């Protein structure tokens, strides 16, 4: 597979240099792999930190800014960052009001953030953690590392960021972030595998005419391989899986997320089927986002995330946000 890179070893630092040059409103520490709001720490504000392997851009570095994350720690491609990064990020955004860690539920992320929280607490920083585990494709949770964190990460980061920006205390920011996660479910599908720079070839073989249902965002195969399906059939399978598990409630936030290699034209078409089916099942859609938000390098495919949103969540969702990857209201 061909890539627009120099050498695999410098992919992450090169991207960080590019991010720094394009976004003077961010402080990018290429050496230590940190992306931080330039005005951090914001006085009396809870710091919101996330991080994870690279390859999911704009997640997480692209969501640093007013109304969302205060800092992000990008790891190597598909490899969670190390505790030193997270501890540094935590110290950089700590104003005294404590720091929330938003952690996608993968063994590596969980373990490294755990060690980081210990380091930060040694420095006297009050840290809370919220785990994102929204992927319903992973069903059998007593026999797995638990559900993966995927699309809902965007919702959690946006809502927690808005609440922190509004001056809420750490416990409330953490509780609301957890609520967002609990109200969110996702399901993903891959039409092709992705290619990591280090491996240089697709992470799995997907013959023409087949797709993977229930994939994550790290190029791992899904739960099931099937013959090629139409967009409408895929939307049906995804929504069946999601709605079976989604807590009941009011209207939803809808994210129709591209995995990176699927054209926006197809994503919007896919989204039309998702919306139609939701209509048939009497699920109201309060807000919709269609695009590449939580990606898996060049993988072709998409995921759907629904979040039951009450008035408060909608208000926080609509609050101004100013980041490279998500921006409105300012």
């Amino acid at each position, binding site marked *: 597979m061909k890539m627009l890179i120099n050498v695999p070893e410098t992919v992450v630092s090169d991207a960080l240099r590019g991010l720094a040059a394009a976004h003077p409103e961010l402080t990018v520490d290429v050496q230590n792999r940190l992306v931080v709001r330039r005005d951090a720490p914001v006085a009396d504000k809870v710091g919101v930190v996330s991080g994870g*392997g690279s390859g999911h851009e704009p997640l997480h570095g692209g969501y640093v800014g007013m109304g969302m994350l205060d800092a992000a720690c990008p*790891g*190597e*491609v*598909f*490899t*969670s*960052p*190390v*505790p*030193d990064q997270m501890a540094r990020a935590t110290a950089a955004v700590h104003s005294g009001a404590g720091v929330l860690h938003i952690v996608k539920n*993968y*063994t*590596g992320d969980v*373990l*490294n953030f*755990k*060690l980081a929280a210990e380091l930060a607490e040694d420095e006297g920083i009050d840290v809370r953690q919220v785990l994102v585990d929204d992927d319903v*494709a*992973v069903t*059998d949770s007593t*026999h*797995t*590392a638990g559900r*993966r964190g995927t699309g809902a990460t965007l919702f959690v980061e946006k809502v927690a960021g808005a609440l922190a920006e509004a001056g809420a205390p750490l416990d409330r920011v953490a509780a609301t972030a957890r609520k967002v996660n609990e109200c969110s479910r996702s399901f993903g599908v891959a039409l092709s595998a992705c290619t*990591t720079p*280090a*491996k240089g070839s697709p*992470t*799995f073989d997907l013959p023409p005419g087949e797709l993977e249902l229930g994939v*994550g965002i*790290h*190029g*791992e*195969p899904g*739960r099931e391989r099937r013959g090629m399906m139409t967009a409408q059939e895929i939307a049906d399978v995804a929504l069946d899986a999601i709605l079976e598990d989604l807590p009941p409630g009011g209207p939803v936030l809808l994210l129709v997320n591209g995995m990176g290699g699927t054209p926006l034209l197809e994503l919007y078409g896919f989204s039309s089927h998702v919306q139609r089916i939701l209509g048939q099942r009497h699920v109201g859609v309060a807000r919709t986002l269609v695009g590449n938000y939580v990606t898996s390098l060049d993988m072709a495919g998409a995921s759907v995330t629904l979040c039951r949103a009450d008035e408060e969540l909608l208000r926080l969702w609509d609050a101004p946000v100013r980041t490279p990857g998500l921006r409105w209201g300012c």
Partner: protein
Amino acid sequence: MEAVLDAAFFRRWLTRVTAVVEREATALTELDSAIGDADHGSNMRRGFDAASAAVDSEPPDTPGGVLTAVGRQLISKVGGASGPLYGTALRRAGRALGGEPRVSAEQLRDALGAAVDGVRDLGGAAVGDKTMLDALVPAVEAYGAALERGADLAGALDAAAAAARDGAEATIGLRARKGRASYLGERSVGHQDPGATSTSLLVAALADTAREAS
């Protein structure tokens, strides 16, 4: 002549492991590609390169010091699941060896036991979950049993290496319950666990280091 378990021994082990990991990185990534995210080889290489560089630039003078330094480097350079797990394992082993300039084969057994406990405490996996523990636990048990039977260090480590290799191979038949591979459910069966495989390389390097010295 029986190998002496001093700082130099563990530095030779580290050099050997670094070379082995370099050589096997692609194979480890290939295994991780089948049931994970195709990075275990590069993770291990990044970690052991950093550990070698750190230990070379400031060589600790005790076995415990070497293992602790390696563990610290793995934690702060690798990331992923394997970084904190191997890092914690080696730090715990290093701590168990204390500040002595030389340790006995029995002390090494206890240190290996501490490493197992470290992995278990942090990762929460058990034997049979298709993780590095499926190579590490049988290796430590075989080592202890061999010492009981009166084997010398090299002999006991040979037994450990064989058990680790068998354990790693036996993960092929297992269904993963921890780590990324667990997402695959039944589809994880039929593939060898990358972490168990790298563990068997680390243990084999211990045995080779001992044999070379004796």
